[in-house]
């Protein structure tokens, strides 16, 4: 009896391991939207066995980087391009032009001869506000970054810490690209109203959703999905324009690249996949015609600031150390 | 006496060091078949180490151990077939009395059908039949030690090693068990080596006593011989109490109290007086050898019943004739 239990236990335990044929996909896409996408992949390639490792951008990026010398992942699917650029610089990626790469808009893919990464969607910063809480306090809804300086918002705003969260840095870079050198003056002022710099990019939105802190600088997708969950939030895209980040795919450089990896990357920017992405994201990387997503601006591309992702990645160290010296107490 | 028997174990030049200190220094000892040998000495003298070396539990020593003329130094403890009993009994608490014995028999690969009979016979020998199903924790200390003994003798060892087997027990139980132990040893005739620091135990049990001190063997002889003719003051004093007067050893019971001053009498002043049941022990201060010489005198309780021997009282005593030196005689008479 004991032996049987032990045997079953070990069998179940072994089933937790990976085998060699399985395609390993690392992704930072949201848990709840992955199933719809991957079903489509499975329909197209029923023979390919795959496993998905999904976690937040920070953890996935840390994992990939820590696994640099001996990569586990075969492909990266929907991870922040800023991280991919970092991998690119460390020569961790393998160039590959998936089928249909020409349909991807130029600002949404790597411009190397053989692109090292290709975008699928972009998301942008937004201010998520809790309508009930603002009403309770009889406060106006802010519509721009400038509005957030209103002293009546003191202690009501949260934003992600740029050193802790990719979204946080995106917000910082967005502000920097519109305000230039005035950025630091602005941030000093804003700091007076900030209740908390969070460690996660979503947290300001969810805090706004539950009313913990009525105003959260976060990203549009999170705000819109909270609204769909029934939270009393409004998603505001600031008048100054939004910083944005691309979610992109890439092939990991390793000794043995699986055939299925290429197939997956092909599928991941195919029209059918793009159609599915467009149900959740206002901006998709390919130039196919899609329906507008509820809750986002009618012309989302116009809301996006003119940002070069590589420049943004390159400026990170300088901007973060400036941030530290300006806001250090 | 078993002296006529042939030599079973030979210990040749055995030394062991812990760091820079000797635990054993050049030990040479023969053990005869069927005899009961006691290793006697104060704690730390190396007697237990010697026993553990015999058992094969200690390795890395110099010298040789021979059994029937063959070296056994490289033989595992179990393969030597020596039974051993520890002071702490070392009975397995999770096994009943009979399971403890069975454990030993099984380890020695006794045939299954013989095991039960063997358990039965050793339990009978040790008077434990009624306790066979009990666990060690349900037994008294004396009973536990009997179980340990039964467990050790069950596999019919060639030599039985006993490491202070009685010292954790109460006086009464110890006394009782001592007799049982002696009887059992006689009955099965197993060569037995016992370590003890209790001289009374050693004298009453052993055929021969080996006295050890400071890692060395100082004397080996029959109990009587050791008591009567100790080779050194250490042995003399360790085996009972001894007065040393001008390098002559005089037992306290050999000093006689005299009622009046006379030829060969000496005088002293009582410094203490202890009642010890069947005798009385008196310490005297005398001027025999030097001004502060202390002499111990044991007086049987039915002698001198009319005297009180109070502290400070001055009394007279005689020393045995054969040990009194010319020196003393001349001075007193």
């Amino acid at each position, binding site marked *: 009896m004991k032996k049987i239990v032990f045997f079953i236990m070990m069998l179940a335990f072994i089933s937790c391991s990976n085998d060699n044929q399985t395609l390993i996909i690392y992704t930072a896409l949201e848990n709840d939207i992955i199933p719809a996408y991957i079903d489509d992949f499975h329909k197209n390639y029923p023979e390919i066995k795959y496993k998905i490792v999904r976690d937040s951008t920070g953890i996935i990026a840390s994992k990939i980087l820590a696994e640099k*010398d001996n990569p586990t992942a075969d492909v990266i699917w929907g991870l922040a391009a800023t991280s991919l650029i970092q991998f690119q610089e460390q020569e961790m990626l393998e160039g590959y032009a998936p089928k249909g790469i020409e349909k991807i808009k130029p600002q949404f893919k790597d411009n190397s001869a053989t692109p090292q990464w290709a975008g699928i969607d972009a998301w942008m910063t937004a201010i998520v506000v809790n309508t009930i809480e603002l009403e309770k306090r009889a406060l106006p809804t802010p519509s721009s970054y400038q509005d957030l300086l209103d002293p009546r918002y003191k202690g009501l705003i949260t934003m992600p810490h740029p050193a802790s969260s990719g979204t946080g840095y995106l917000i910082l870079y967005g502000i920097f690209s519109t305000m230039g050198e005035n950025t630091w003056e602005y941030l000093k002022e804003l700091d007076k109203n900030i209740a908390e710099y969070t460690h996660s990019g979503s947290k300001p939105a969810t805090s706004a959703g539950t009313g913990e802190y009525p105003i959260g600088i976060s990203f549009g997708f999170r705000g819109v999905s909270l609204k769909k969950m029934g939270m009393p939030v409004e998603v505001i895209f600031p008048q100054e324009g939004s910083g944005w980040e691309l979610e992109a795919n890439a092939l990991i450089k390793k000794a043995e690249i699986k055939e299925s990896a290429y197939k997956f990357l092909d599928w991941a920017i195919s029209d059918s996949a793009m159609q599915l992405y467009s149900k959740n994201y206002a901006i998709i990387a390919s130039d196919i015609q899609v329906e507008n997503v509820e809750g986002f601006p009618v012309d989302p591309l116009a809301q996006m600031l003119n940002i070069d992702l590589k420049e943004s990645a390159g400026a990170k160290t300088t901007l973060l150390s400036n941030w530290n010296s300006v806001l250090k107490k | 006496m078993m002296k006529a028997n042939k030599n079973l174990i030979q210990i040749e030049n055995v030394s062991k060091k812990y760091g820079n200190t000797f635990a054993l220094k050049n030990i040479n000892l023969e053990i005869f078949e069927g005899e009961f040998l006691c290793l006697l000495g104060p704690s730390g003298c190396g007697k237990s180490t010697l026993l553990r070396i015999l058992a094969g539990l200690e390795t890395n020593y110099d010298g040789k151990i021979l059994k029937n003329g063959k070296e056994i*130094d490289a033989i595992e403890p179990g393969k030597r077939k020596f039974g051993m009993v520890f002071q702490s009994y070392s009975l397995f608490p999770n096994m009943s009395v009979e399971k403890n014995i069975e454990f030993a028999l099984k380890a020695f690969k006794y045939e299954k059908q013989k095991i039960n009979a063997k358990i039965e016979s050793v339990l009978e020998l040790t008077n434990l039949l009624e306790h066979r199903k009990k666990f060690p924790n349900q037994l008294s200390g004396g009973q536990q030690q009997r179980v340990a003994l039964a467990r050790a003798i069950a596999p019919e060892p060639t030599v039985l090693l006993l490491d202070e087997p009685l010292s954790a027990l109460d006086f009464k139980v110890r006394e009782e068990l001592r007799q049982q132990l002696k009887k059992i040893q006689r009955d099965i005739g197993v060569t037995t080596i016992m370590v003890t620091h209790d001289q009374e135990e050693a004298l009453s049990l052993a055929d021969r006593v080996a006295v050890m001190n400071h890692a060395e063997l100082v004397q080996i002889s029959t109990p009587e011989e050791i008591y009567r003719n100790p080779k050194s003051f250490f042995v003399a004093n360790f085996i009972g109490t001894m007065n040393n007067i001008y390098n002559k050893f005089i037992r306290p019971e050999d000093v006689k109290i005299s009622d009046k001053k006379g030829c060969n009498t000496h005088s002293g002043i009582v410094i203490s007086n202890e009642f010890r049941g069947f005798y009385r022990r008196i310490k005297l201060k005398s001027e025999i050898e030097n001004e502060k010489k202390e002499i111990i005198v044991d007086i049987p309780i039915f002698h001198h019943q009319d005297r009180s021997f109070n502290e400070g009282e001055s009394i007279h005593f005689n020393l045995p004739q054969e040990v009194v030196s010319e020196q003393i005689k001349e001075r007193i008479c």
Partner: protein
Amino acid sequence: MLKSNFSLQKTFLSLMILSMFLFLFIFIAIPIIKLLLTSLSDPQGSFVGFENFKEYFRQGEFRTSLVNSLIVSFSSSIISITLALGFAFATTRTNIKFKAVLKSIAMIPLFAPTMLYGISLIYLFGNQGIFTKFFSDSFSIYGLWGIIIAESFYIFPHLFLILYVSLRSYDSSLYEAADMMNARGMKKFIKITLPSIKYGLITAFFVGFTLSLTDFGAPKIIGGRTNVLATEVSKYILGQQNFQIGAVASLFLLIPAGLSFFIENLASKRQKAFYSHGSKNFELRKNKFRFVFFTIFAVFISVIIIGFLSVSIFASVTTLWPYNLKLTLSNYDFSRFNMGGFNVWKTIIVALVSAFFGSIICFTNAYLIQKEKALLPFQKASRLLSMIPMALPGLVLGISYILFFNSPTLSIPFTNIKIPNALAFLYGTPVIIVIANIVHFYSVPYLTSTSALKKIDSNFQAAAQTMNASKLTVFFKVFIPISLPSLLEIFVYFFTNSMVTISAVIFLYTANFKPMSVAIIGMEESGNIAVAAALSVSIVFINIFARLIYIGLTRLLNIKRKKWDKF
């Protein structure tokens, strides 16, 4: 002449001792060395001296986070020790009722991932909290106080257990002597009770200090603008993927923890004399004041603990807090997150496997260190290594495991020699999670095994040897049966901790397996707080269930052992 007898037994024993040492060295020492090397290298792996340290001091919030960490660890240790001491006193030295139930309640915080306290605290005292309206406007749970409360909660059961054990038995003659001298209750407490549990108190303090220093779950949720050392580490590693400076920050987490380990070691040496006198059980006398006071106190603490759990249960069944409080069970329908997500059964299996091998390794190692003498230097080294995990933050363990096990080759420091990493194959398998769990929670079960083994006669092996029985036979037929209750206790300890742990495994989980506890973080982050609460509550109940099985088994065992077990 040198005798080296019975080669087979001895070789086997030496091999066991050596392999146990290697296990500890590879899985505890090498990752730390790797971390140290990382802190001295640039991203490409070349040696840069103290550049990363300089960088960290220059730009990090090092000083503030250090000060905050010290305040948090110190205050929560003191608060929790005070409460745990009261509770332990109530359950050992008074006549209050339902002690067994109270004791189980005190253990509840041990069964929950730290996220649960965070969620409960926010529901109770957050800006929308149930109680918040009773406080002034300037009140905020976010910040130092929030962290301190959450940490005090988190460390309470650990401290309670330590103090419970120290208070349970002692020399009653001291109290009888004091009674003869007509000493008062409070005076007896200060003059006799406190000194007699001095070692327990010191241990409790350092365990509490280390645990609260290295935890980053609570500060992350409830810290507000307050930075502590642990969040600094997560900021560099998770936020910026800067492992080099992350390693520097991790080393700072190790220093105070390491220091506490040495001070504690010192204290335990001085305490030894206290236990050697036969400790007798205490006869409780009736004391009305004591009864009433401690009943109120114990009920108060229990209500708080159960209250916290209830709030999380409430959170897990509300539709959308705080705006739609309609009750629902839909948050417990985890099947909709299965894709790339977690699996309840696999989580339990991995925890069971961790517990199974953890108990075996831990007990065997404690046995080899405590009861055998074959390769003394290795035994001593193993003993030292066994105590290190206590001071090792999970986050640091996880990162150093990735860094070490993922490199296909290892370069020997300050040379150009590279050797293949024979253990790289473990990476990406659940084996590494099991190993991380075993190592992460190693020290406490090691201490439990050691104290259980200390009670066993050290002549058993010698006795058995003269009976021709092998050491293995004695180990299985005597040592294991005698230590079965302790082994069970260790097993449950490993299981419970493997169920709740997040920090180490968050880096190590595989494509095929994600533990429930790790899934909580993702859920909380995406705003699915109710689901996060549901996950936490499920873990608590799985652990309570495991505990009940443990209690049942222990009872059964005690009936069987009643005849012979005197402990």
